[in-house]
């Protein structure tokens, strides 16, 4: 092994010093003092983090656009769509110093209260299929089904909207935080410029250099209710976010169950993977948070499937299964049962439009 001090006397001195430090550390503990060790040093390159935050602010400013303007499907339909890649890559600048995360295991994290966020609503229809199916209607229906499944399994569910009303992203975030949610699950339906592409993808908070994801974040962040000044504060949380690991795990669990459940009814479904993106609802919420794009309304077959009650049920079951898988190691409520089997693969009844 390398890393050994060359001279044996120097080596012995170093080992003695380290043992003394370990002893002092334990004596401090016995005496009820703060542990010994060097005082925290301010990192000489803290400005790098600052510069990074400013860069991300600039990125979001460019991406998000005017927050008060409602989103249309057309807004997403511009620009080329790069290949979707699972989130196995490093962040764009992996060497960037990241503030140290606090392990969630520090706390006794039981998952009890789930905030379910049906995307869009009211004057903001979200994406629309060619046949006129609106994202806001699909997300609300799936959210209601999910609410029943989760409630039936012992979770408390808080809905950010219960009907076809407009709720700004800011208000959704405030509601989730005030409710003390343990998890935040935002439900959306994708619209991809290439009409032949279809699939599911799940997002958690983080920077992205994928132009499609930037577009999507801009679209989903519309009508956020945040000002740029708010964003400045929110952005500082992006890299210091202690929920990142947990959100990634939750996103992985949701994506796995979504893809597995839906491909049975939709064999050509693409697994577009777990990705990072700066969605406003993910930045502002204080609990592990993900945004699931549960289907593509821009694909005619998927739009047709989305009209079916059975397919919506399947999506709701898959989302619930993802939450169960994530929550199980966290000590989910004891009465949590495995989700009921998803509906059969046959054509389902048409949902009420």
């Amino acid at each position, binding site marked *: 092994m390398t890393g050994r001090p060359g001279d044996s006397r120097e080596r012995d001195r170093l080992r003695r*010093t380290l043992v003394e430090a370990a*002893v002092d550390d334990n004596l401090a503990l016995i005496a009820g003092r703060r542990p010994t*060790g060097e005082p925290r040093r301010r990192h000489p390159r803290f400005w790098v983090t600052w510069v990074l935050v400013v860069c991300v602010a600039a990125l979001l400013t460019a991406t998000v656009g005017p927050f008060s303007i409602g989103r249309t499907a057309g807004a997403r339909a511009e620009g080329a769509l790069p290949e979707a890649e699972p989130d196995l890559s490093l962040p764009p600048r992996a060497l960037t*110093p990241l503030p140290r995360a606090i392990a969630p*295991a520090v706390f*006794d994290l039981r998952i009890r209260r789930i905030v379910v966020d049906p995307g869009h609503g009211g004057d903001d229809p979200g994406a629309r299929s060619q046949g006129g199916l609106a994202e806001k209607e699909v997300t609300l229906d799936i959210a209601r089904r999910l609410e029943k499944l989760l409630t039936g399994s012992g979770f408390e569910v808080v809905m950010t909207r219960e009907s076809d009303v407009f709720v700004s992203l800011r208000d959704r975030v405030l509601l989730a935080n005030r409710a003390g949610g343990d998890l935040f699950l935002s439900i959306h339906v994708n619209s991809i410029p290439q009409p032949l592409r279809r699939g599911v993808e799940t997002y958690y908070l983080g920077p992205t250099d994928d132009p499609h994801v930037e577009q999507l974040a801009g679209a989903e962040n519309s009508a956020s209710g945040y000002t740029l000044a708010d964003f400045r504060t929110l952005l500082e949380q992006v890299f210091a976010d202690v929920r990142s690991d947990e959100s990634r795990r939750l996103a992985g669990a949701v994506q796995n169950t979504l893809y597995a459940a839906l491909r049975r009814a939709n064999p050509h479904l693409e697994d577009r993977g777990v990705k990072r993106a700066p969605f406003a609802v993910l930045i502002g919420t204080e609990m592990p948070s993900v945004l699931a794009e549960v289907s593509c309304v821009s694909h005619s077959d998927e739009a047709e499937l989305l009209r079916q009650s059975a397919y919506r049920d399947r999506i709701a079951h898959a989302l619930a299964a993802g939450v169960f*898988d994530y929550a199980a190691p966290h000590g989910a409520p004891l009465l949590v049962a495995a989700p009921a089997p998803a509906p059969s693969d046959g054509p389902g009844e048409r949902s009420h439009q």
Partner: protein
Amino acid sequence: MTKDNSGVLHLGIDLGTSRSAVAASSGARHVVDSYVGWPVDMVARKILKREVLFGREALDNRPMLELHRPLERGLIKEGSAKDERAVRELLAHLISLAGPQQGQRVFAVVGVPAEALRVSRQHLRNAVKGIADSLMIVSEPFAVAYGLDTLLHSLIIDIGAGTTDFCVMNGHYPTEEEQRTLLNAGDAVDDQLMTLLRTRFPDAQLTIHTVRQWKEKYSFVGEPARPVIVTAPVSGKPTTLDITNEVRRACESLVPPIVETMLDLISRADPDYQDKLRHNIILAGGGSQIAGLAEALMAALAEVGGGRVLAVEDPVFAGANGSLAIAREAPEADWERLQS
């Protein structure tokens, strides 16, 4: 620097989430699964004929036991008297396995997951009070570094069951800034593998213990050396399953967060020593045995100037051996001071 004092038995203990090991100055070495179980009722007590069971025996008799894995997710749960008691029982069991002689004093160094040391220090100290004549608690990656004598410009990545601990050794006792803990570790891989297998084989009857055993036997990242074929009951009938892709996906979920944290810690080191640090990365813990992991980390290092990653030769006892080295090298006067 070591002492030969037959009146004292020095112990190095690795108190892990999944397995715990003890190495004694007498040469004794033992490892047990970190499970502690108490019979649930009088009937179970009569059948088992024991007040408390440990390790594999506890796991095998789990229907009759209140089973605890005391350092789940690398911590003693705050306010959990049972977990404190389980830590205490487990340590006492490890000490008894080391076989101290009548009248021999026991000086023990206990290595624990770094996060447990940071968060549950007082709980740990309370839990272990009185079970040895004198006792010191250190973080596991520090113990590994000490045992391997990699104390300068090295980075220890200790991939355990509950946590992955990172510790940069710069010739001084590591500060908080030089240590990191991730929850992406063995248990998270088990969970993910279980989810993937349930998804692909919805009728297969799997338990987390079986899935964990498969992971420990077949884990790999990158290209598989051979297909991973296992047998499991499917609707009650033993069935052969090819789980190669699932094992790979579950294991590879560890790579991005480890790479990210590794590169971040290196980037924070003194620029003059970053090259040395990159070439002196040690993988320890059960996760160090994932085939191809060291190569995957070296591939990531290649993008920032190259580096070398080595896995410890004896992952089961690397921490216990390091703790034993600390125990033997600590002056007796210090052991006296630590007796309170």
